[in-house]
């Protein structure tokens, strides 16, 4: 039971952190629970499909299907997060003023929610497919012990939900005005970290071989597999041995997000006034 609990919790942990942040980001948006729930359910359904076809997926692209699939869905999440930040830079102020004032803002608001629901879906899909494969293997082969395993899995899932709730509650302690800045920075770092992770999957698939030397090794200080290492890995993309390419991708995404936000954010209100 403990083994199942640990395995499930470890996988759900990352998704829990991400959903917690997204709940905090969307706290003021009406009907956001529906969207986030749709993201979770969609991701869970996707996870089951991926688990069911895991063997076939692996065989694609001369055995590198899993890596490329992960890189692709992470890429989608990065685009969605970046798009959300850019959209918020343009509309954030109107939105905070009065969400319901203009029909357009509400319509656009659900567009932005769709982007974040996709991010939630991707997070659940990535972590969930491993949980599904693991639990499926347990249920089909270990007949007798499967009940206690199911309990372990269930408790692991509940703990993951607790991580999500704690992240959300923690972020809500920040007053609204600075919270907007904090979540913008969090989302940017999340996007950069996911992009670097996508790069590492492409490196594993040998699709990306440029700049593949390791820049530094902080494994002695903060190993990837420690709890703090895993948390920082999810939140800001920490890894103890980044390659040059991962670092370049990480910094590029931060720079591009910043430039896009400057480009769309600062001028839009002036144009509106005119």
């Amino acid at each position: 039971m403990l083994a199942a609990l640990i395995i499930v919790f470890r996988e759900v942990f990352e998704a829990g952190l991400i959903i917690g942040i997204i709940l905090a980001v969307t706290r003021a948006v009406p009907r956001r629970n529906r969207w986030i729930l749709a993201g979770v359910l969609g991701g869970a359904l996707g996870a089951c499909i991926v688990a069911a076809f895991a063997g076939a997926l692996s065989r694609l692209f001369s055995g590198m299907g899993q890596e490329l699939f992960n890189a692709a869905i992470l890429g989608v999440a990065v685009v969605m997060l970046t798009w959300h930040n850019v959209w918020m830079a343009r509309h954030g102020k109107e939105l905070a003023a009065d969400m319901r004032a203009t029909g357009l803002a509400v319509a656009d608001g659900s567009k932005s929610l769709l982007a974040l629901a996709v991010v939630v879906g991707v997070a659940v899909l990535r972590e969930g497919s491993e949980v599904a494969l693991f639990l499926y293997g347990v249920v089909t082969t270990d007949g007798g012990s499967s009940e206690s395993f199911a309990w372990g899995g269930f408790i692991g899932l509940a703990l993951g939900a607790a991580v999500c709730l704690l992240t959300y509650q923690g972020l809500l302690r920040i007053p609204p005005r600075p919270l907007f800045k904090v979540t913008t920075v969090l989302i940017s770092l999340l996007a950069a970290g996911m992009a670097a992770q996508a790069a590492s999957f492409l490196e594993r698939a040998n699709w990306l071989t440029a700049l593949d030397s390791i820049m530094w090794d902080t494994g002695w200080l903060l190993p990837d597999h420690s709890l703090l290492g895993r948390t920082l890995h999810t939140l800001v993309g920490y890894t103890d041995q980044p390659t040059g390419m991962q670092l370049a991708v990480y910094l590029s995404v931060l720079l591009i997000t910043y430039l896009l936000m400057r480009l769309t954010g600062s001028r839009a209100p002036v144009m509106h006034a005119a």
Partner: protein
Amino acid sequence: MFIIRTLSKLATFAFAAWGLAVLVPAAHAQQATEVQVTYSNGQFQPSDLKAPADKPLALRVKNLDTKAMEFESKSLRVEKVVAAKSEGVLNIRALKPGRYEFYDDFNEKARGALNVQ
């Protein structure tokens, strides 16, 4: 408003183009040496593998069991789920001589090591 739209579209386009450039597959610099390990009845066979140093490796993991396993190694910096009755290949960069341990993340009793010489 039009200018902003155009600019942001251009920026999105630039972002997409950058993504494509990153995604273009690079040529394999060096032929990888293949190493094979079988997983059956919750055990790696052989549990001690040998591989040459300073050469990129392709580690083929054959899972003969009826449940999925996750090949994982912290020192090799790899992890990969291998579905029931199937196989997976892991690309490993050129390694320094040494002993690199690995295990099944879904069943930590199953352990083995790659000896690089």
